[in-house]
Structure formats: C-alpha cells, structure tokens
C-alpha cells in the first residue's frame, strides 16, 4: 500500500456505534495528521476503547466513515489486511503469545507481510535476528533476551517487548489502549516517553489514558464523554477545571 505524505493516517467521520443501554459512540469525528501525537481522555465508559477498536478495524461502525491513510477499508479481505498491517495496537493486556520466545513474538508482528513458508520457519528457527535486536535496543532491552520464552520476562520487560513488537510491525498509525494503567509512576513515564518518541516522521499516535499529569508530550488532547467528543485542544490550552468537569460525573 502506498502512502501519500499529506494523507491523514486516520480519519473518522461521524462514527456511530450503538450500545445496549446508550450509544457507545455518537457522531464522533477525528483526524490524525502525519506525525501527530494525540491523547484520548475521558472517564470510564466514555467510549475510548470503542473508538480505538473502530480505528484498528476490530469493530465496524454502524454509521459514519473510517479512512486509513485516506482510503476506506477495502472490501477484499486481502487488501484490507494489507491496510491493517499499517496499524499497530499496543493493548492494555499486551497480548503477547506466552508460549513463544521473544524473537518469535517480535516476528509475529511481520506475519501480515510474510508468506506461509517464512511464518512456519519462524516457529522452527530464529529469523531476522539483527532486525529484532535493533527494535529491542530501541526500547532498552538486551538482544540476549531474544531466545528467552516470554514467560521468563518481568512485568516491565513485557511492556517494552509489546512496544518493540509494535515497532517491528513498522506501522503508520500507532494506537494504544490505556497502556499505562496498572504501571508504577516511573515505568509509566518511561513507557510513555518511548511511545511518544516512536511517533515521528509520518507515524501518528493515538493513545488513551486516564492520567492528566502525563499529557505534556502530546500535540493534542481529545476528550470523550458519553460517546461524544467534548473537547479537542492542545495540552497547554487545557485547564484544570475543564479536566475536573470531564471526570466529575464519574465520581
């Protein structure tokens, strides 16, 4: 898939996702410019995870339009998969494959681009060691971990591995669903720093989080409440009272 330099990596136009009691998303529009770093905030149940699921194609909206790199999701499964290969998600529960090694997990990020022979070979032999070592280094992990089973890693190492896997995928759009939840403050800052660092060039970042104290490094903050966008501003414009109002109903 070719990517034009000025096309937004992600554009949502008047997205609607129904829910059981109330709509999960109502008329949500959002555009991410190339290289832009956007924080998605809002109380629990505001629709942040739903929005990210629409953004990575896991959920199809009932109404509205999703554009990836300026193009609607293809109907052909093969072409759609090629589009999704350019969207990387950092999951809150990481979703590492516990039974595989670090190297195999990193290579799993390339499966959308690999054919069967390579995908099978990855389950037998260590492949692309240099490229994997390079992404591990970018997240401050040692290449010596490549042959280790994922189960041997500490909590912090697992977070970094999940991020390294995302880099190995080399996506145009980085999505992260509450990646800092359950992390101690030091680790949360470190991981956020790494994430913000990766959004450069054309790669944009959309990250949902609960902590107003960590918004500094972002270009924009988008706030959701009850499935609607209620605020879209730069972090410097954001006031304490606005944030307090956003979370007040939750309390």
């Amino acid at each position, binding site marked *: 898939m070719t990517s034009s330099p000025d096309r937004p990596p992600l554009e949502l136009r008047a997205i609607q996702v129904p829910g059981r009691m109330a709509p999960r998303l109502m008329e949500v529009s959002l555009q991410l410019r190339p290289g832009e770093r956007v924080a998605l905030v809002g109380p629990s149940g505001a629709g942040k995870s739903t929005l990210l699921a629409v953004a990575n194609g896991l959920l199809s909206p009932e109404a509205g339009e999703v554009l990836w790199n300026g193009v609607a999701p293809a109907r052909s499964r093969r072409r759609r998969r090629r589009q999704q290969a350019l969207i990387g998600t950092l999951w809150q529960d990481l979703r590492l494959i516990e*039974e595989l090694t670090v190297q*195999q997990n990193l290579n799993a*990020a390339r499966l959308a681009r690999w054919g069967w022979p390579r995908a099978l070979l990855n389950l037998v032999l260590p492949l692309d060691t240099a490229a994997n070592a390079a992404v591990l280094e970018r997240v401050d992990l040692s290449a010596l971990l490549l042959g280790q089973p994922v189960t041997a890693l500490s909590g912090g190492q697992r977070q970094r591995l999940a991020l390294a896997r995302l880099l190995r995928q080399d996506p145009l759009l980085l999505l992260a669903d509450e990646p800092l939840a359950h992390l101690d403050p030091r680790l949360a800052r470190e991981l956020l720093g790494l994430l913000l660092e990766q959004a450069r060039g054309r790669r944009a970042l959309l990250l949902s989080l609960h902590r107003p104290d960590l918004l500094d490094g972002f270009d924009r903050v988008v706030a959701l409440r009850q499935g609607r966008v209620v605020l879209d501003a730069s972090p410097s414009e954001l006031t304490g009272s606005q944030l307090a109002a956003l979370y007040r109903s939750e309390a």
Partner: protein
Amino acid sequence: MTAIPARSWRQLRLAPPLLPLLPALVWLPVLLMLPAVFHGGGWDLIGQFARAAFSPSLDPQVLGSALSGLGVTVGIALLGWALSLALGLLGGVLSSRTVWRTATGSALPAAWMRRLLAVPRAVHELLWGLLLLQLLGLQPVVAVLAITIPYAALVARVVSDLLDALPTKGLEALRLAGAPAGPALLTALGPALQPGVLSYGGYRLECSLRSATLLGVFGLGGLGTDLRLTLQSLQFHELWSGLWLLLLVMLALEALLRGLRRRWAMPARFGLTHRSVGRGGREVALGLLLLLPVLVVVAMALGVNPLQLGQLQPLPPWSADWPAVAALPWPSLIGSTLGLTLLAAALAVGSAPLLLLMMAPWPWGRVLMQAIWALGRLWPPPLTALLLLFVLQPGVLTAALALAFHNLGILGRLLLEAEESASVLAEEALGAAGTGPRLALLYGRFSVLARSYLAYGAYRADVILRETVVVGLVGAAGLGSLLLEALSSFAIDQLIALVAVYVVLTLVGEDLSDRLRRRLLAA
C-alpha cells in the same frame, strides 16, 4: 549495544503451535502409498452411497425397523453405561490409594486392585461381546455386559486417579478430629470428586452409544446390525435412514451433555486439567433418582434378564495345540498391530488441527467439516472399512484410514471445544495487525492448545490400540483379524494367547501414553 546471538542449526526447535500439526506429516507417505492400494473399481458404489445421503428411504417399514433398532441400541447403551458407572465408582473407591491409606494405613491393596482391573480394561468391548456370545448365546444382556465390563474398569481407573489427585488436608484434619474413616472420606473427598466424575460419566454415555452401535455391527442386536446388512446388500437409501436417525440421537445427546456440563459447572474433558467446583447437587441427585425407573423400564423392554446369566451354552469340544500357537508369526502380527495403531493415531491427531486451520477463513467450510466429523464419530470403523473396501484393497492402510476417520470425529470435536474455550485475545490482536485468519489461529490459539491437545492425542492412541481389533475384518491387520478368526473357529488356545498378547500390549501402551501425557502437561 549487546552482541547479537548468532544463528545456529542447534537452535532448531519446534514451537508449540507446530506440534499438533506434526503428526499430519504422515499424510505424505500415505498419499504416496494410496495409488497402489486402489483396486480400480467401486467408485460408482461410493458415488451411490454419497448420493443416497440426500435421499434416505422414507418407507414407513424401513423407518419403523430403523427406529426399533435404534431403540435397542440406545437401551443397551443406557444400561451398559449405568451399570458400568455404578460398578466403576465402587471399583474406583476400592482402587484408590487415599481410601485404603485412610481406612487401613496401607495403600498396598489399592495397587493390587488396579492391577486386577487392568485386565478387563485392556480387552475391547467387542471382544467381550463375542466371548460372551459364545458363552451365553444371543441375548440383549450380552451386549449390555460387553459394555459394562471394560467400561466399569475404565471408570474405576479414572475415579481412583481423580480421588488420589484430590488434596487431602481436609481429610487429615477430620481424621485428627476423630472422625471415622468412612464419613471422613465422604465428607472431605465426596463433593470435590463429584464434578470430575459427572463430567467423565457424561462422556462415557457418548462412548457407550458408539459401542452399542459397534456391537450391533457384529450381530449383537440393535441398529448396528441393520447398518451392516444394508451396507453389505448395497441398500444405501435404507442405510442412510438409519444413519440420519442415529446422527440425530447422537447430536441431541452431545448437546444435552454439553448443556448439563455448563449448567452444573463441570470441568471440560480436554486433558482433564481444569477442574471447577461444580454446582447443582440437588438437581444431580434428582436426575439420578429419575434415571432408576427409566433403567428398569428399558431393561424390561429389552428383555434383559439377569437370571439368564446362569444358563451357559455348552462349549464345542476343543484341544490345545500350544506348539502351533507358539509358531504363529508373532513379531509380524504385533508389528502390524502397532503400525496400524501409530498410523491411525497420527492420521487422526494430525488431521483435526490441519483441517481446522484450512477451514479457518470459511465459516461454511467449518460447518461442513463439523458435519463430517459428526458422521465419523457415529459411523463405526468396521463399516468405514467395508465402505473403503469398495475402492481399496484390504490391508493395514485401509484399516488405518477407517480407524482414523472415526477417531478424527472424536478428536475434532474435542479440539473445537477447546478452541472455543481458549482465549481469543492474541488471535484477535494478530488479526487487527493484518495477519490472515489461518496464521492468526496458528500463532494465537494453537500455541495455547498444543500441549493439552497432544496429551489427549496420546490417550487416544492408547484407545486406538484397543480398537485395532474392530477393523480385523478387513484382513491383514495384525492381531485383530487373527483374533476374530480364532473366535469364529473357536480355536480357544489361539484365542487365549492372542487376548493375552493384546492385554500386555494395551497395558504397555497405556503406560507409555500416560508418561507422554504427563510430560506434555507438565511442560
């Protein structure tokens, strides 16, 4: 920068997702060998058989006969199952180390009981059926006993394993507080044992229905007899009337047991690794109480009379010729039986995940695959063997394909159950990153399933070894075909020797598969 570890061929290692697919490699030599096994004709018969599936006979007489045959099969299955469960529970308690240690202070009697119960377990229900047929003549009680004897021994083994795996701290506390052995055992272990026993008991009912059909194929009554006769007389439309009815009953039973397993929070069968607490004790007790009058009515309707057990048939005269028995080609007989077992097991264990993977992108393909698996489960292997003989020559490969088809149906269903209960998260994440459905399934879910599936496959191989006897009728299939010959010609000396060899092989196989299973689950 840290040094990058160099790649070496010593790092070659199969990752878990590939393990369940490994046995499917056996298809390569099988496909190479198959052309030589075709005898050139019979395809029109296979075509007629397949077409008849869509136009089963609806003649009231045919349907009436099939229904009454089905009634006998279900009745035999129900009685054999209930008796085996009651005796198996008793046997299980009597062969439990924990029970003996608590009651007498020594676990030695448990070890002896286990050894004693190994013999009836090692002999397939078909053999029991044919032996009892010689002793008692043709009557429904023969089929019921043929199921009861080996099944009771199997249930006993599982119950004692479950009992001995339960934590004993509660039991020790009760004993220290002065409770007598019986009440202490019942209070401390009874409730914890219940979900495992119920889940396994339900599974045995499904097996019992399959066994009752199989016994019918060998003339012990019920629908199986009709199926074999209609197949041999090429009445495919009538054959399918019976098959569809049997399929309906089997699927209904499976659905009922699945529902009960969920309702009573019983553990999944796969690998028997996850145990839950279980609930619905009152409902379970009520269900069992209701079952008793049903069993009495079924026994009366079938004409099962326990008094007939005392009336033995006079045996024909026989003389032992042990040197002739010793001169039998034992190494080749044993070799071909083991070869048949391994081939059938590899085909069945490997094909289920391979098919699941191939069908991953197509929901309709999955439905079709499930339908074929259901047919494989209910269709007794000797009938598959007979069907294959339309196009293939008799031999080990034909017998292996017949056994594999049946076991593929059983393994496939278990794999699907496990696949549905395994976490979908990793697979979903791979899919969201553009990975195709097959690779996402392989990496995301096979990783989790691999070991427990193979552990179950090891147990299945052990069952297949026992089942080799049922495909003996396609000839050249090792000990099984000689055993059936010895039975029909009443060569008791050969029969004794062959059964003894079967028992030893089965027990060794059971031990090996147990070790393999423990290793797989521990890894």
